[in-house]
Structure formats: C-alpha cells, structure tokens
C-alpha cells in the first residue's frame, strides 16, 4: 500500500498523505472550506460542523476536519448538498450570537463575520430570545464577551494541549453550556494570550487592546520580539504612529504560530511616562534638555576627557544583551576606537574565568525544531517555562512524544510536562550535584584538572546515576545550561562539569542565554576579551562584574538600568554613584538614572529600531522599524554612527544598518575556530551560617520595556511577595509565614514579608532579582542573612 491516496476535491485530482483529513489536503491546495473549531495545531473536535462537505457515496455530508482521505474519494465542497449543510450550520451558530459587531473588537477580523458573509442568510428566522452569558474575569490580559462564544472549544484545547494548563473548560450542558474557569480566576499561563488568536469570534480578545483600533485601520509591520533568545517573529500593528498591538507572525522554524505573553503585551511599555524624549545633560547638578548636537558633543567631550586622564582604563561600557548586532558592534568599535578596553554585555554573569574557552557564541547546541526530536534532555539551573516560554513549548512537545526531560535545579519548579528525573539542591550545592551526575556516568569522562578533584569528591546518588544513564542511553540527548549557571559564582566549574558530562554521554551541550541577542553581542565583540568575530585582542579589558567591583572613573551604559539589570545591583549602583562621568544611551529616564548620569541620550527601543538579533540557535534575524521613535529619540545604531564621527573615529561612515550588518557578517565568516585548552573554574567558599540567595529574574522583570508594561505587571507572574524559604529553614530561623524579616547582603539591608515555599531546598532563600524591591541588594546568587524583623 502506498503512503499516499489519490483523491478528488471539486474536480481537482490531488495526491494526499494517507490518514490526512480532507480539510488539511484542501488547505494545502488552496481550496477553502469554512471552519471554526478546526485549528491545525490543535486536536480535532469536529463540534462546530461548519466544514461539512459532500463525499460521494456517503449518504450525509461529512465534516472535512474529521474525515480521513481514502483512495478514490470524491469530495465536493460547494455542491448543493454541501452548501445547504453549511448554510444550515451557519444559521444555528448565529441563533445565539449577538449582532454586536459594531462594538466588537473582533469586527473586521472575525472568522464568524467572514463566514456569515459567505454562508449566512440575510434575514434571521429566529425570533425567540437569544441567550446571554455572563462575562468571566480571566485576568489582566484577556477580555471576555462570552455571549459571543460559539463553543468551538479551541481555547479549551489550547489550554490542555499547548499551554499544558487546563484551566478553561465547558461547564453546564445544552443551552446552558459555558466556556470558562467555573470558579473565577485569572488564566495563568505564560502563553495565555494565544487564546485571543485561536478564538474565531470576539469572545476572547486582548484586554489592553480593547476598543483601541479597528483591524482595517492599522498597518502591519514585521519585526522580531526582543525579550528572549528565541526571537519570536511578530507582526506589529500600528496606527497613528503608535504600536497598538503585537500578534504572532508564523515561522514554523522559530515560534510556529505562537508567541509568549511577554512578547505580545510588552509593547505597552513603549508608552511609559518615563520615556526619554530628548537628549538631556546635567550641568552643575541641574538637568536640562538640549539638541542632539550639543548632547553628543557633551558626551564625547566627557569620554575624551576621561581617556586623556586615565587612558585605556578610562571608563567601563555595559551594553544590554537586547542591543542589536549593529548597535553592539558600533559601540565596541567606538569604545575601542578611543583606546578603551572595558566592554561587556554579560551583566548578570558572575564567573568569567573560563571565557577564553567559550565558543564563538553561546548556542542551544541544536535547532529549536530539533528540540522536539530529543530523547533525553537535562536542564541545569533552568526554568524555561518562565524564562524562554517558546523553547519550553518545544520541550513540552518532546516530552509528550516520549522524551525524558530531567532537571537539576535550585528549586522544584513547576513544569507543564512530565519530569523524569529531578535533583533539587541549593545553588551552593549545584556543583556537587552535577559532579555526582558525572561520577554516576558509566562512560569514562575526560576530565581536566580541577574537575577531576570535584568529581572524585562527589557523593553517589541513585537519582544522579539514573540521569547520567538516561543521557547516555539516548540517541539524541541535550544538556542545557540555564541562566542560573551563567549567574552562578561557580559558573565556570559548572560549565566544565557539563562539558565533561556531555562528552561522556554523547549529549549536545547548549546554553540558554538571557536577552534577545546575547549570541549577537558575542559575535559583534561586545566582550572584554574578544573583538568582533572572536578576534583576539592585544589588551583584554575587564568583564562586567570586574568593571563594577574595580570601580571605574566613568561609565558608558547602553540600554540598561544597572540597579535592575546587573547581577549585583548594590555594587552597580555604588560604582555609578562614585563615577566622575556617566553617559547613558537609554529609552527611559528613571529616577535612579537622574541621580548618577551626566548625559542621557534617547535611543529607540524595539519596534522603533532596525537591526539584527541572533537567536539561541544562531539564526540571524533582521528587522525594520515599525514606527518612528517619539520626540527626538533615534535608533541606537544611528546615534553611535554619528557619535563616531563626532569623536573623529575612523570607519563610521555607514549609510545603512545593512552595511553594518554586512561588516559584522564578514568578520564572523572569517572567524578562526576557538582553540583553548580546557580549564575548570574555582570553588567558591560559602559561609556556613548564611543562607544562599536564589535571585531568579521573574518573567516580567526581564528588561526595561517589560518592567513598564502595565498589563503584564498585574499578572501573577509579576507579583512580588517577599522572601521565600522552606519550612525547615524558616523554623530554624524563627520565621513565620507572613511575618516580616530583615534581609541582609553585605551592607545592604531591607525588610520584607516571609512566605514559606516548600519547593525550595533547605539552605536557600528565594528573593527575585531585577525587581525594584531588590535593587538595593547584592549578588543574585550569594550569601544572604534572613532574620526576624
């Protein structure tokens, strides 16, 4: 039997894969069949009956979405029988649907409206009362008008099958059936906004977008989402020069048809009142707005004067991992052109001792699509669900397909798929835990000095050995290191152990970086030890942490808020405050910034900027600006280009962003392979009497834009409750759930409520980073004292 069937639809003979449904084949060949409940990424429900078609020899019309093709099948999608059935179904669907299209946000992009135009009657024969369904409160992101619901159950299936969180359901029956959560609660998934797209009618719409614009009034521009290393493709819908909403742009290789809530609703942050609309300089302690020419001259003079006094050590440059390839490249070119060598984008990293051994740029170790075909995955210090939601979706698909996903984490995080191996230890015990996985591996591993001792001293555990053997037995295994490894003071040792484990088990090794363009920043040379394309440098500079610890006379900040974006906010703030001159390229003007900066240059963030991001699989994705930046704000790469001229530097005469990209690309093409002997990092002594702080960055604290997006900030993921620890640790320290505690890190000291969270291992206390409440504290991962207030 062949794998294909020959069928005929509307007189066209088509070859179709056996087992495919009629509607899939029709879609593939551009034959339109109306539908509501069918969605190619969801399971088949066949409950709306809109896709009824005539199939020869079948006595009744059949649903095209649930009828598999068979050899010789003859389908008619528009015959009198089919059209009659479709018209009748349409009439039933419209019986209870309100005629409120003029006030419905879905108007103009409504599948029901479109199909009713094609298949509906002009006049309704239904004169009884329509039913009314009370609206539900699904939280700050999704607006509901449940009377409009036609019960297609796409949202219910999305929750169960894609989000992995069945929260919406169909309660009641018959005419009393309603879609909802039954008990009022916010839908609480990092992907929840996609129900807005799957809903074919106006029952579920975007709450922040409510009554903002009509579909046909907006222009659509393509760009790339800037909040994580996936680089989800999006359409930005624009009206009157403003971003009105963001929706997914289909790209099967990257984000399929989905986007995370962070990528969907962050645009609101673009219109925060803290947007910096014109260049500002501080003279004698007073801030005043000025023109670009004056501001660039002021900034250039300030930097030049630092250089003349301090030479190559004049100032430290900290660049956001969300800066584009072009921006990162021009910035390092400018800084190095001035003879200064301190530049870095690894703001939260804590251990740089193995940076010479690092590959040309961090990567996932396989493509996003390949994640689905893994048989075994070990996540170390990663919670992709709340860090890179689209990657988590791929992992979930792998798990559903039978992959064994295992974790070695500093907290027992919730996953929306089965976890087949779990080691949960305090951050200060992660090295030992990973070493015991490595020592449990049957295959001999080649160990470099330093790692050998750690492995020899590791305790043996059954769980660890099981993880090692699962990795070794898999044909396609991946070892993924998350942000908690990058931020770990023993990060280099963890990476060395992971590298040994990967080579012993045959697993690919990948890194989950923070920010949209960490890989691009590596390639563009926004690093202290390598130039663009990995070129070695005569005089390496200081890494991000060292240039704060070893306070510099000046700083140049690009797109960051150091008190929130750096791994050690207290250190960052004191460095900024102690500096003679701080120049800031920024989209926002914060109060803290007004205190330490000397000049603020307004640059255009996401959606207002053109450039390129390199995602975690190494994919270069370029984008154009969707709207003009407000006020005097300008794209960062243009500002840098002009500033290069103002500083009289060579090679700043680019005419377009493409030209800059081309230059980086050719440098990357010429890159020599990195050859450096293995080395391991150092052990860090952990004070025994202190707790270890686990400072993970919450989903909606990732960057300056997201932190200012009001709807996202109202979600449960953004709620900040205080410092948490497990009941054993709390009992030992005399802390009660809900009581206030004094939290100390070094000299920094704040008072916070305590809550008990038994997902945390003993010896560790979770206090999120990147949030204003923790902006006065020390390192993300480090000793912390918690005592009753």
């Amino acid at each position, binding site marked *: 039997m062949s794998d294909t069937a020959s069928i005929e639809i509307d007189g066209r003979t088509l070859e179709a894969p056996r087992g495919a449904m009629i509607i899939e084949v029709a879609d593939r060949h551009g034959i339109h069949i109306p539908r509501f409940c069918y969605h190619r990424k969801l399971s088949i429900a066949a409950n709306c009956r809109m896709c009824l078609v005539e199939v020869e020899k079948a006595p009744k019309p059949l649903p095209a979405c649930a009828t598999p093709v068979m050899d010789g099948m003859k389908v008619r999608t528009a015959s009198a029988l089919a059209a009659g059935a479709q018209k009748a179904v349409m009439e039933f669907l419209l019986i209870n649907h309100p005629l409120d299209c003029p006030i419905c946000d879905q108007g103009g992009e409504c599948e029901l409206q479109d199909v009713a135009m094609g298949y509906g009657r002009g006049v309704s024969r239904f004169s009884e009362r329509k039913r009314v369904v009370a609206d539900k409160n699904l939280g700050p992101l999704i607006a509901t008008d449940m009377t409009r619901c036609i019960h297609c159950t796409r949202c219910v299936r999305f929750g169960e099958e894609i989000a992995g969180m069945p*929260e*919406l359901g169909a309660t009641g029956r018959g005419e009393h059936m309603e879609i909802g*959560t*039954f008990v009022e609660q916010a839908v609480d998934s990092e992907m929840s906004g996609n129900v807005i797209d799957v809903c074919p009618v106006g029952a579920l719409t975007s709450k922040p977008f409510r009554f903002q614009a009509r579909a046909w009034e907006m222009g659509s521009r393509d760009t790339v989402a800037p909040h994580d290393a996936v680089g989800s493709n999006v359409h930005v819908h624009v009206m009157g020069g403003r971003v009105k909403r963001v929706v997914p742009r289909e790209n099967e290789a990257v984000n399929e048809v989905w986007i995370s809530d962070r990528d969907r609703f962050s645009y609101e942050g673009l219109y925060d009142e803290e947007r910096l609309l014109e260049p500002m300089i501080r003279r004698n302690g007073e801030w005043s707005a000025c023109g670009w020419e004056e501001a660039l001259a002021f900034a250039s003079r300030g930097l030049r004067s630092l250089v003349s006094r301090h030479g190559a050590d004049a100032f430290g440059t900290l660049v956001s991992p969300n800066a584009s390839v072009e921006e990162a490249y021009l910035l390092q070119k400018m800084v190095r052109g001035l003879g200064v060598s301190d530049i870095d984008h690894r703001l939260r990293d804590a251990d740089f001792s193995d940076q010479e051994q690092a590959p040309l740029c961090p990567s996932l170790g396989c493509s996003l699509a390949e994640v689905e075909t893994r048989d075994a995955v070990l996540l170390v210090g990663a919670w992709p669900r709340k860090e890179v939601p689209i990657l988590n979706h791929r992992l979930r698909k792998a798990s559903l397909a039978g992959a064994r996903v295992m974790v070695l984490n500093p907290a027992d995080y919730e996953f929306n798929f089965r976890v087949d191996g779990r080691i949960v230890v305090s951050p200060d015990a992660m090295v030992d835990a990973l070493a015991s996985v490595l020592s449990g591996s049957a295959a001999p591993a080649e160990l470099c000095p330093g790692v050998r001792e750690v492995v020899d001293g590791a305790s043996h555990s059954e769980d660890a050995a099981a993880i090692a053997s699962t990795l070794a037995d898999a044909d396609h295994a991946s070892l993924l290191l998350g942000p908690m490894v990058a931020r770990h003071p023993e990060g280099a040792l963890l990476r060395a152990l992971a590298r040994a484990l990967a080579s012993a088990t045959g697993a690919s090794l990948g890194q989950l970086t923070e920010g949209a363009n960490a890989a691009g920043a590596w390639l563009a040379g926004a690093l202290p030890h390598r130039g663009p394309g990995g070129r070695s440098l005569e005089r390496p500079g200081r890494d991000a942490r060292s240039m704060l610890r070893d306070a510099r006379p000046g700083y140049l900040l690009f797109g960051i808020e150091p008190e929130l974006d750096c791994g050690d906010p207290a250190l960052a703030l004191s460095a900024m405050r102690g500096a003679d001159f701080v120049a800031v390229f920024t989209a926002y003007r914060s109060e803290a910034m007004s205190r330490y900066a000397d000049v603020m240059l307004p640059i255009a963030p996401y959606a207002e900027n053109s450039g390129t991001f390199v995602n975690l699989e190494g994919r270069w994705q370029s984008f154009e600006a969707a709207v003009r930046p407000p006020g005097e704000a300008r794209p960062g790469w243009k500002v840098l280009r002009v500033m290069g001229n103002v500083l009289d530097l060579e090679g700043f005469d680019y005419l377009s962003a493409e030209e800059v990209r081309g230059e980086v690309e050719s440098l990357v093409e010429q890159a020599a392979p990195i050859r450096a002997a293995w080395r391991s990092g150092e052990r860090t002594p952990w004070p025994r009497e202190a707790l270890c702080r686990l400072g993970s960055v919450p989903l909606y604290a990732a960057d300056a834009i997201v932190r200012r997006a009001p709807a996202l900030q109202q979600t449960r993921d953004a*709620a900040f409750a205080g410092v948490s620890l497990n009941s054993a640790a709390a009992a030992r320290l005399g802390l009660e759930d809900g009581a206030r505690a004094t939290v100390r890190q070094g000299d920094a000291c704040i008072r916070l409520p305590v809550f008990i969270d038994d997902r945390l291992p003993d010896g560790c206390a979770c206090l999120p980073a990147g949030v204003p409440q923790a902006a006065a504290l020390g390192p993300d991962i480090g000793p912390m004292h918690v005592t009753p207030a």
Partner: protein
Amino acid sequence: MPYDAPIASLDIRMPMSRVEAEGLLTPHTREEIDHWAAKYPAARRRSAVVAALRAAQHQNGGHLNEALMDAVAAYLNLPPIYVYEAASFYSMFELRPVGRHSVSVCTNISCMLCGAESIVEYIEKKLGIVTGESTADGRIYLKQEEECLAACCGAPMMMVDHVYHEHLTPERVDEILDALE
C-alpha cells in the same frame, strides 16, 4: 537602616493540597474513589471523576460544593476544571443544597402530550415553589425538567428518589408527595 520594600497585594488561588483533600473526604468516600480509580489505567484517572463525585455528593447529604469538587480534583490529581465540567454537566450532581427528596417530572414528548405540563403546574402550586427549587422545610426538591425517563407507556410520569410513578393525576401526586417524610 533597613527600608520597607513595597509589596504587591496578592490574591492568588492556590490549588488544594492532597493532604487537605484527604481531610475533606471521609475514609468511606476515599475508599470508594480508590475502588473506581483502580479500574482505569493510571494515566486515565479522569475516568473516575463521575464515580468520585457521586461518592463525595453522598457524603455531603446530596449536594456538592466547591471545596468538595477541589478535593476530588486534588485526590485524583486532576486539574479542577475537569471536575467542574463533569459536575456541572450531569443532572445527578447538585451544586447547591437541595431538599431531601428529589422529584423529577418527565416533560418529554410522550408525557407532554399526556398532560405533563399541567402536572408540573399542579406540583409547583401545591408546594409553593418553581421547578429547580426546594421547599423551605427542606423536604422536597423539584428538580429541573428531566429528559425522557423511558416510561412513555405510563405517561405522564415522575421519578421520586429513583422510584417511578406512572399515570399521574393530581390525586396520585397528592398521595405520593404527602407520604414523603
């Protein structure tokens, strides 16, 4: 000087723990649920929802509440919405307190043709309640209209606590209802 960090107010509905669920369900109910759950593969625990709800409703004197539904969900390790869906769909589950005796009058086609509507009207007037309500003394619950109860030959008919009464007349109705304690 420590400063008091500002805190967002939190109103989060946390899922019920298994321990809490075990506290809400009686040993007998749990035994009953275990008995039914054992009949299905581990990955198909959802199949035991109806039996579990029946047991939970029984322990609670004939109706379910949110806490009991959450307890069933937590006990079977299912998302609560699965339990809400089943409980709100099937007519044998009551989601609020109802009278001791359940009375359902069939109003489907055969009974309707034989005068079921006037029987309903008679009962409503007699008890002073409308369909869906219970009498104030908690004696009788007049259940929402039933679909066909498969006793068309004896139309009009009603079911009182699982007992069928056929060929109803107002006098028969008086006799039956007045005999209920």
